[in-house]
């Protein structure tokens, strides 16, 4: 079933079509959101919220991009806003002493550093825009055109940010490469 037929059936209130739309896109969305959030609970929350918004706004989908790209743009927006909110709260140190660190953290090890761990920390330390593009392109395999549409930027911007992200990662891991 093509996107247009599926959307028409969802808008007509067909629950089977709703489930079919969800099944067709949920894996890709969850994977990407998990890569960005690094936490199962938050990845689930953001994925759920993305689909709730997608269903609510489906009538506004005009088909300029693929449905998968449109849903992905909602998911990335939801995830980044959620992560920003968590970051702001952590910075403010809300009076909730019971809370463990909620952003993904990787223990920095000075002795015998493991490449994956060091790279993960370096990726976490990237500016948000660089990290998002890097994760989408180099980790999840999105094209620059897809990234541009999902993030609402030109594909050239996506390329530039990937270039800078890689450069920063190489710098961060330079000592590792020399060892």
């Amino acid at each position, binding site marked *: 079933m093509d996107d247009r037929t599926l959307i028409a059936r969802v808008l007509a209130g067909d629950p089977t079509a709703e489930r079919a739309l969800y099944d067709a896109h*949920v894996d890709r969305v969850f994977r990407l959101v998990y890569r960005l959030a690094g936490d199962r609970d938050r990845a689930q929350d953001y994925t759920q919220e993305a689909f*709730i918004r997608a269903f*609510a706004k489906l009538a506004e989908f005009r088909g300029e991009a693929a449905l998968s790209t449109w849903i992905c743009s909602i998911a990335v927006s939801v995830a980044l806003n959620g992560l920003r909110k*968590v970051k702001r709260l952590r910075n403010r140190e809300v009076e*909730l002493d019971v809370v463990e660190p909620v952003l993904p953290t990787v223990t920095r090890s000075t002795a015998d550093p493991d490449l994956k761990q060091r790279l993960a920390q370096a990726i976490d330390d990237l500016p948000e825009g660089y990290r998002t593009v890097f994760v989408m392109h180099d*980790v999840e395999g999105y094209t620059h055109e897809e990234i541009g549409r999902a993030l609402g930027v030109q594909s050239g911007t996506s390329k530039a940010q990937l*270039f800078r992200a890689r450069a920063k990662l190489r710098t961060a891991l330079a000592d590792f490469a020399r060892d």
Partner: protein
Amino acid sequence: MDDEPLSPELRDAAEAYHLPPDTPREEMWQRIQAARQAGAQPGGGEAPMPPQVRTLRARQPARLPLWLGIAAALALAFGLGRVSSRPDTRWAADAPRAVAGASGGSVAFRVAAVEHLGQAESFLTLFRASVRSGAGRDGLAAPTARQLLATNRLMLDSPASADPQLRLLLQDLELVLAGIAQISPARGSEDLDIITNDLDRSAVLLRLRAAVPAGGGSPARPGVL
């Protein structure tokens, strides 16, 4: 731009970055359905109030003077804002769906409701994270929950809750906040199970997120960089 791809070694390492587990399809689908159904409550009439909410609210002392005080303060603050700043109607565009439809409620109450729902959402997000990480049994979240509970009750009594959808959300939120406010360190895990079940069953967190503006990154404006 002449860019050199990552070395194979780095690329392999990058693939391990936040490696996703299997997609919990059914679990998420059930929550999505619950949240959508809760959001599509019949528009007319007031939703029946759960017995636990009725009991909690009946126990509360008379709060009309405080209610009036806050209403007056909000109205004054809003009035001052109108006088001292240039006209700005952006709030109207950003008002959340659940709140925007409140009929007869003043702007001040709607603004206060948005603020309250945002705070509650942040609190519950952090609370749930702490529970999942094994903390949260010592009742240290209770004071914050009590503060939010007090505001929640004011919101329930205010014109902002004229919107049935918002009212239902506030009522479900009250149940959850009341549970957290009463966590006893002695029976912490039992209490937490009940609270997290309430959170999941009523999809309060999802509904809060849907009700609160996304801070400039809405799906209608997907640009995030």
